[in-house]
């Protein structure tokens, strides 16, 4: 029994959330049961991801591959679980568990009625399953399908509160995201035309053999994929949907959208860029310079936009734009240090940003105010929530001993190795700007006199969720060991010239 589960774990982590999601609507009348099922699924997903990661660590980075339906690789769909997949699976699982806990406590209240809450959970699990699928799949068309599942669930999550503002944000998001998926599908089509394969490994071999015969098609494929995934992962000039969508969504939804969804598309881009095109081709086409430039612009512009926002959730949303910039910058520098930094930063930012959004959600729910200038004294009335917020902010800025530091430090080392002065300056400036837009919130919350209102910390499940996320931030910062190891190995694996 255990060996059966172990052998089929790569496919279980993907299908379990999907199938649980589909049976949820039949239990809509018993919302407690739905919440229980969702929490149980995320716990099981967490255990599965942890077990897979330990298996991969023991196998010394040798990826576990799984052929769906028993059809071998070039014909069938192949799942492969390597270091990168494990890191991402762990990230998805460790964020979705606390968010599910948090949502169980306030979702019915926030979206209005158990029927809508059930719909939220269905989309939530679909998103989780799609993310897990993105982590493990090594088939290009699967990537497209999972990206679409994730996109539709994201739009549904944004509009789950049924307010007209949310519907508008969701519509704009849907239009831009569909534009992105059309581009992604086009890019995959170009790749399929010149390689004749949809499996990443086989497509990569074929591409490296023939790309010089079709340089224009390769350029088209690269640019289609870059813009497509760029729209979806909110790379700076293409981020216009993000602030509205993430601030109009209910708090647990914005936590999962900002923390995970954006990273899912980035992981797909990493897989396509490094596993299909390969590092040699990227360097030949100077793609890494474009990525570096886009990343730097995103860091500065995202941070500057965040500085000017007074609404708490909008400020956090723009901060996500800036952090996505770090991810792209690390990809562009394309050496082992910077890729380690990027991957680790991705994981730590997922946890941090979820924590920030959940804390913000708790504050907004308790005070009814969404402007930073009105949040004077929140720190004294809601000590635990604000403590979590502070830990997460400090970590995002990149103070040593917190998780954000390790990612940024590796990025900085990577830029030193690449000899890119401008990138070093931008990374440090980004951190300073990050402090500039997060610390004023903490100052207002702690050091300004509180009004005589009755604001309280949220209930126990929400507090548990917040503390869990803060603990994750501390653990990732203090003992990054296995996670950093996974990130390092994944980075080295991506840089292998095929």
């Amino acid at each position: 029994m255990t060996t059966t589960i172990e052998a089929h774990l790569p496919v279980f982590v993907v299908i379990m959330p999907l199938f649980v999601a589909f049976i949820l609507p039949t239990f809509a009348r018993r919302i407690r049961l739905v919440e229980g099922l969702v929490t149980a699924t995320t716990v099981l997903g967490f255990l599965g991801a942890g077990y897979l990661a330990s298996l991969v660590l023991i196998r010394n980075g040798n990826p576990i591959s799984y052929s769906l339906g028993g059809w071998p690789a070039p014909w069938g769909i192949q799942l492969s679980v390597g270091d990168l997949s494990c890191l991402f699976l762990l990230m998805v699982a460790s964020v979705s568990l606390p968010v599910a806990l948090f949502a169980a406590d306030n979702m019915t209240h926030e979206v209005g009625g158990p029927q809508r809450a059930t719909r939220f959970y269905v989309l939530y699990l679909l998103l989780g399953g799609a993310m897990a699928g993105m982590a493990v799949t090594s088939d290009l068309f699967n990537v497209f399908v999972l990206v679409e599942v994730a996109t539709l669930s994201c739009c549904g999550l944004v509009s789950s509160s049924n307010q007209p503002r949310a519907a508008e944000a969701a519509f704009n998001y849907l239009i831009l995201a569909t534009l992105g998926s059309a581009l992604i599908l086009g890019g995959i089509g170009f790749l399929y035309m010149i390689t004749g394969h949809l499996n990443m490994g086989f497509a990569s071999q074929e591409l490296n053999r023939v790309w010089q015969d079709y340089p224009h098609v390769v350029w088209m494929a690269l640019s289609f994929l870059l813009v497509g995934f760029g729209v979806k992962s909110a790379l700076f000039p293409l981020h216009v949907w993000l602030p509205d969508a993430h601030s109009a969504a209910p708090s647990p939804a914005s936590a999962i959208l900002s923390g995970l969804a954006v990273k899912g598309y980035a992981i797909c881009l990493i897989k396509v860029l490094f596993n299909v095109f390969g590092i040699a081709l990227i360097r030949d086409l100077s793609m890494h310079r474009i990525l570096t430039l886009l990343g730097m612009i995103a860091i500065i512009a995202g941070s500057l936009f965040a500085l000017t926002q007074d609404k708490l959730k909008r400020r956090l949303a723009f901060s996500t734009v800036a952090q996505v910039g770090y991810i792209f910058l690390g990809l562009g520098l394309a050496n082992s240090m910077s890729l380690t930094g990027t991957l680790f930063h991705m994981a730590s930012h997922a946890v941090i940003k979820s924590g920030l959004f959940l804390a913000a959600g708790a504050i907004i729910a308790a005070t009814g105010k969404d402007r930073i200038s009105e949040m004077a004294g929140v720190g004294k009335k809601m000590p635990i929530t604000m403590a979590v917020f502070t830990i997460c902010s400090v970590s995002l800025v990149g103070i040593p001993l917190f998780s954000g530091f390790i990612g940024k430090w590796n990025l900085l080392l990577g830029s030193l190795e690449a000899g890119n002065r401008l990138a070093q300056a931008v990374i440090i400036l980004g951190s300073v700007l990050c402090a500039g837009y997060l610390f004023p919130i903490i100052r207002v919350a702690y050091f300004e006199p509180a009004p005589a209102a009755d604001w309280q910390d949220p209930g126990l499940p929400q507090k548990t969720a917040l503390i869990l996320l803060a603990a994750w931030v501390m653990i990732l910062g203090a003992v990054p060991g296995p996670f950093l190891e996974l990130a390092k190995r994944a980075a080295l694996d991506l840089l292998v010239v095929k």
Partner: protein
Amino acid sequence: MRILLDKLLVNYPYFAAMILFIIGAFTVMTRSNLFKKLIGINIMESAIFLMFIAAGNIRGGAVPILDEANPQAVYINPLPSALMLTGIVVSVSVTAFALALIIRLYQSYGTTDARRIAELRKR
């Protein structure tokens, strides 16, 4: 010029796809009516489907159903068509979801014009 014309005649599905794609993208970006945006998205997706299916086509190829009477037959590649069926399913669901959102927006703002909605929201 002749070479260009030759290429155009041989690869006409790709050119058609390109033109459709540009029409779709232009519609999405310039129209402020939500329905027109949605139609633009659909045109764009059709362009991609056309491109994909054209890539699998072989001129004079047979339908890919096993024909025992003629084992030497050249079949067209069925994979792109099968993949695009999935793509069409996805596009149908996107359209349905977008229509539901448009109905929701129309109920609360009384218009389907994106600019007008933005004005009304700011008020």
